[in-house]
């Protein structure tokens, strides 16, 4: 990586530009995409930056093509990404599944807008979180992050590339319009402060190499690239360790289980959360993305009013931090889940706790304000269950 391409310094920039600079800092040298609000600034910025740094910007004819070309570039060895919003994310689902099956690393950014369908192109939403988890057909592990600020959009772009390479997966970065268009301070670190986890690469005989053989405990096979002399075969069909199609239920079971298990087995690298005010909390508010900004505000005000409330911010939404939620559940009486959709992540929380979980929801189009979250906290607190135990 050439450090001179990294614009170390302090800036005032929007989240989409921060994402684009994060990609360059991470060593991304291929962007294939199709413009869509509110992610377009990522494409625009990279169309001007890639030619300066020897990278490729290609504007594809649609999002099926974007996803496919990103996978081709990554298969040839490049760190590669695309960026889109809901309508394009739907079209990408096909080859997000192919990326999972071929185990080709890449980054897919979805700057969420109000949905479904064309929805609210210029306004925020958080209603694609379940699509991110289950959108492509079949079972496969998913890693998805949700930044709450332009700075975090930068940082998570770098981290997402690292996770994608390390685990041979497509990583989904689910920003929202608020974070994409918000302008805030962004600090781009020195090149040597930018974490870099490379791809696991094959060692040993090229002839013996099996591109889908997971020897290590992490269940991730080393990745060889086109043109390196391995005579690789990659297919979206169910395949054995050589990558050869094998239409048997046993091979399918082994392969698909590994695609799920390699994510489940490595929570430390993948799960990210942040907590505030958990001391003595009897109520925990959970939120992610731009909604977390309002939620933290609501929690602060509630604390000032003497309510025993704490805050959990999900940075990774997938994998869901179920272990942490279960631990929290040992000491609290209720949860409040705030999200800019009509109740998606709340189901994940409910799956892991016995306490009541109160949802604060909005279909999207405007940021959730602190007030309804505060009202929910007060409502739960006044139920009496929180006063003593």
């Amino acid at each position, binding site marked *: 990586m050439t450090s*001179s*391409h990294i614009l170390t310094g302090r800036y005032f920039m929007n989240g989409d530009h921060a994402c684009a600079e994060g990609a360059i800092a991470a060593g991304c*040298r*291929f962007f*294939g995409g199709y413009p869509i609000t509110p992610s377009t600034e990522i494409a625009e910025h990279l169309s001007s930056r*890639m*030619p*300066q*740094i*020897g*990278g*490729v*910007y*290609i504007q*594809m*004819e*649609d999002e*099926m*093509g*974007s*996803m*496919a*070309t*990103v*996978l*081709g*570039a*990554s*298969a*040839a*060895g*490049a760190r*590669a990404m695309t960026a889109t919003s809901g309508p394009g994310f739907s079209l990408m689902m*096909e*080859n997000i*599944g*192919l990326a999972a099956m*071929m185990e080709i690393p890449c980054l897919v950014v979805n700057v969420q807008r109000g949905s479904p369908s064309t929805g609210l192109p210029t306004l925020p939403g958080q209603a694609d979180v379940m699509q991110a988890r289950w959108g492509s057909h079949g079972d496969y592990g998913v890693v998805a992050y949700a930044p709450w600020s332009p700075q975090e959009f930068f940082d998570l772009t770098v981290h997402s590339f690292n996770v994608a390479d390390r685990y041979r997966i497509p990583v989904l970065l689910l920003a929202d319009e608020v974070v994409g268009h918000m302008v805030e301070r962004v600090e781009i670190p020195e090149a040597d402060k930018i974490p870099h986890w490379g791809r696991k690469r094959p060692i040993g005989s090229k002839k013996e190499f099996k591109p889908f053989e997971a020897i290590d405990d992490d269940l991730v096979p080393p990745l060889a*690239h*086109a*043109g*390196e*002399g*391995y*005579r*690789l*075969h*990659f*297919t*979206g*069909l169910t395949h054995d360790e050589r990558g*050869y*199609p094998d239409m048997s239920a046993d091979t399918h079971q082994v392969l698909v289980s590994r695609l799920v298990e390699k994510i489940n087995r490595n929570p430390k690298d993948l799960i990210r959360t942040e907590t505030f005010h958990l001391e003595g909390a009897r109520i925990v508010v959970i939120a992610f993305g731009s909604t977390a900004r309002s939620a933290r505000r609501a929690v602060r005000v509630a604390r000032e009013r003497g309510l025993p409330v704490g805050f959990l911010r999900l940075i990774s939404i997938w994998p869901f931090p179920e272990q942490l939620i279960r631990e929290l559940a040992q000491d609290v009486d209720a949860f409040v889940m705030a999200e800019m959709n009509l109740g998606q992540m709340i189901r994940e929380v409910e799956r892991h706790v016995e306490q009541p979980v109160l949802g604060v929801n909005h279909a999207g189009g405007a940021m959730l304000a602190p007030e309804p979250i505060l009202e929910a906290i007060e409502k739960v607190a006044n139920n009496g269950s929180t006063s003593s135990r």
Partner: protein
Amino acid sequence: MVQPLLVEEHPLDGLIRADRMPHIWCPGCGIGIVMRCYAQAIINSGIDIEKHVVVSGIGCSGRVAGYMNIDSYHTTHGRGIPFAVGLKLANPELCVTVFSGDGDLAAIGGNHLIHAARRNIDITVICANNFNYGMTGGQMGPTTPYGALSTTSVYGCPEHPFNLVNLLAAAGANFVSRWTTIHVRQVIDDVLYAFNKPGFSFIEVLAPCPIGFGKSNDLEQGVDETLLYRERCVHEPDTALDKLGIDLREDQPIYVGRFVDREAPAYQPIRLEVEK
């Protein structure tokens, strides 16, 4: 006792994945002939075998990626071309070929096909055109001739097919040719020519599909369609592009040859000088 005759070696041995044989293709299927031509062109090319990459979409033709013993990617239906574009742009040293079917390339992948040709991306596309969706059992598709029977056009195909040569010429491809599985030498020559030709090259090869297309169109055996090619093919490369459509109803000619060979610059990503 008769001793079995053992063939020790075949010139293409190293290029075919013997451990994947037997292949899935039906007796009389033309796809294998086209694959053989592609393999021969790789040998003749003198380009390092390790730099050849084949990408396929989905279909009987798409299975070629699984049988070639080179770096090979069997992608999703219709998406072989954009995948190949990514490979080529990320590593321009690769000699990238897309091998797929008429349905894969011209129906579900049709948008990618015309846009890759418009951009004149430096890849080679080999289209095995068998006038139908073979893999799914013989449905009509974008190249099914008007009036032809298929499992979804039991009263005769009511749509007009693409004239692929004209389509690709209009879209901007640098090189466009059409042959059939009886034109083995020409196919080898054109694939080889396309490897070395900058820009987008498209080689359409008509291939018998006795099971999907032939059985319902009085071409029960692979050889029947082969004979039809022999009777109907006309090598007139100067024929106007819009006259190159394929109509099997009457005794219409099937025009074959090299129809487009131009020198428009191939796509290049923009590179600026970096001040250090």
